[in-house]
């Protein structure tokens, strides 16, 4: 209806304008929905692979090992050790004992060792969660037919053991502990080095540097470096940190020499490489945060007779800190999920012992995922999915920290 009498011209015009607006609105909504669907598919497929039935066969079923009327699970270590001794080679038995004297073993350890050393379970086939739930009966029949000695077991691939156990060749007992520790080591190195350098550089560029030609060249280069593909940083890390600085990164010059490790392919090299990778992003984020501090605040400070440093330290930084932290933490989460440069730098894909210093060989969660997905066996696919969930949880935790810090500091300033 037109507003004032007969103005058909205005009315048609208005309708067309509203129509155009509606079309755009629909496009925006559709884009959002597509993004949400993509995310949902990703999450569902990961969770789908992290749980589900597995057909497991044993070399000697645990039920045959236990004396009649008893089950292995309830037997004590004193009863379990002889079974172990009976069924493994003398060499293996001595090896197990030398790793940790039997007297110190808990019942659970005894049980698990007997199962894995003697029964030797093997995941023949695995099925995804949705498939498992839908075709449970068919699967039972199928396993009975295909693997007469096997059992059908519902596996939670993501469980406490998975997080606390080290890497193993057997997907049934492989865990991600070494990778988690490796990732955390590297992230700490990145934070310790990239934060101070990046923030200091940002302060210099924003507050001190004069607007000269050199300044513009530096700024352009930082922006370009932020867009350089990560694999190239990996090459740089390999050439410089691993090769040139080997005495440093492998710890020789600190008297840390363990011939079995790393030749420069250490946590330190990886941390330094990822530091270089995120440094431009940290600088740019911190610069943006510093730029966002209103100039009136700087003027107020100078107007009181404050020096440049007093102004920066007392006003610019406290007001920029939430932005700086948000930006830098998000770049750290980028480093956390980074794979390619670490492969080039020489992350070991198979590390069963925890790194004990920054000069150790290492693996990280993304590397572990990459390695597992490359394996042909079904079960590796499942533990890779479980590892992805662990990785996502870490990333969410980092992002949540960023949000928390931002809210906390911006509230303090009100």
């Amino acid at each position, binding site marked *: 209806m037109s507003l004032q009498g007969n103005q058909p011209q205005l009315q048609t015009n208005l309708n067309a304008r509203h129509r155009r607006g509606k079309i755009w609105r629909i496009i925006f909504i559709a884009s959002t929905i597509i993004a949400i669907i993509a995310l949902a598919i990703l999450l569902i497929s990961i969770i789908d692979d992290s749980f589900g039935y597995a057909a497991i066969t044993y070399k000697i079923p645990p039920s045959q090992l236990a004396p009649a009327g008893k089950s292995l699970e309830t037997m004590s270590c004193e009863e379990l050790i002889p079974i172990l001794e009976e069924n493994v080679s003398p060499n293996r038995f001595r090896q197990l004992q030398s790793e940790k004297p039997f007297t110190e073993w808990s019942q659970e350890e005894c049980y698990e060792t007997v199962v894995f050393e003697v029964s030797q379970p093997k995941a023949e086939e695995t099925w995804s969660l949705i498939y498992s739930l839908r075709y449970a009966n068919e699967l039972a029949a199928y396993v009975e037919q295909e693997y007469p000695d096997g059992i059908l077991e519902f596996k939670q691939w993501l469980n406490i053991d998975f997080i606390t156990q080290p890497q193993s060749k057997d997907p049934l007992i492989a865990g991600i502990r070494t990778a988690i520790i490796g990732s955390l080591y590297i992230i700490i190195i990145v934070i310790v080095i990239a934060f101070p350098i990046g923030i200091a550089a940002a302060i210099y560029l924003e507050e001190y540097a004069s607007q000269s030609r050199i300044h513009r060249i530096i700024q352009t280069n930082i922006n370009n470096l932020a867009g350089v593909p990560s694999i190239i940083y990996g090459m740089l890390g390999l050439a410089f940190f691993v090769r040139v600085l080997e005495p440093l990164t492998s710890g020789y010059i600190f008297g840390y020499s363990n011939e079995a490790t790393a030749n420069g392919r250490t946590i330190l090299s990886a941390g330094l490489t990822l530091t270089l990778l995120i440094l431009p992003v940290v600088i740019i984020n911190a610069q943006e945060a510093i730029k966002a501090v209103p100039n009136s605040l700087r003027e107020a400070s100078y*107007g*009181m*007779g404050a020096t440049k440093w007093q102004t920066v330290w007392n006003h610019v930084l406290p007001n920029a800190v939430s932005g700086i932290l948000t930006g830098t933490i998000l770049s750290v989460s980028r480093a956390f999920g980074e794979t390619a440069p670490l492969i080039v730098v020489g992350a070991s894909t198979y590390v069963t012992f925890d790194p004990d210093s920054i000069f150790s060989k290492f693996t990280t969660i993304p590397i572990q995922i990459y390695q597992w997905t490359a394996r042909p066996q079904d079960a590796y696919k499942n533990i890779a999915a479980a590892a992805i969930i662990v990785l996502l949880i870490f990333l969410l935790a980092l992002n949540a920290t960023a949000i928390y810090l931002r809210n906390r500091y911006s509230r303090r300033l009100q």
Partner: protein
Amino acid sequence: MSINIKLATDQFTPTTPTETSNGRFAVEATNLHVYYGNFLAVKEVNLKVETQKITAMIGPSGCGKSTVLRAFNRMNDLVPIARTEGEVLFHGQNIYAEGVDPVEVRKHVGMVFQKPNPFPKSIYENIAWGVRINGFKGKKLDMDDVVVESLKDAALWDEVHDKLQQSGLSLSGGQQQRLCIARAVAVKPDIILMDEPCSALDPISTLKIEELMRDLSKHYTIIIVTHNMQQAARVSDYTAFFTLDENRAGYLMESGQTNQIFMNPKEKVTEDYITGRFG
């Protein structure tokens, strides 16, 4: 009021008004030119500002009055492309002379800005901070005294005495501006520059600030830039009228006692501007 502010450096120690022969003038600008890059923003300003009086600078937009004001405490130094020529004497000493630290100039020549810009800190800290960075080494109780005195000087004490730990940003616009004045007063400057201090405020807050300026002028020299002709007429003792030439360079048209400028201007342009015929 006993405050003991020790200066970090002593290379710039202006003599007090009573000690100098030309103590009548707090600021004397001689042949002042300010450039922004190649652009001449202000030319040939010769202006004497009387001590412990209020001097208003008026003129159309872009005539360089704010630039001149900011030349008096070297705030233009913060603009990378700005360049200043000529002399600005502060109680007889040129603040643009070699070896003069602008940081110290600003301690003696405080400033209040167009938009209230309290620090995002508590009301107490807003005032204490400036005193502290200027080398205050006293006890907490002395600092409390400084804060209370400054707030009283800025006619803000009655309104905020029970909420000193609240954020300065929680105050109303007019209160924030008075907090900025209190903050400036706290470091005991000789001169307070005010760059359109009331342009963001309502009439009641404006009135309060004007009354406050009258009070402060008993102890301080105040220079105020304003677009509000009535304000200049109401509050100031002296008025300087700026305008711009055909190259958009601002210059001082005429200055004198406010009565004379408003009642009996020498220049036609001044009269036209004041009576609202242009600008």
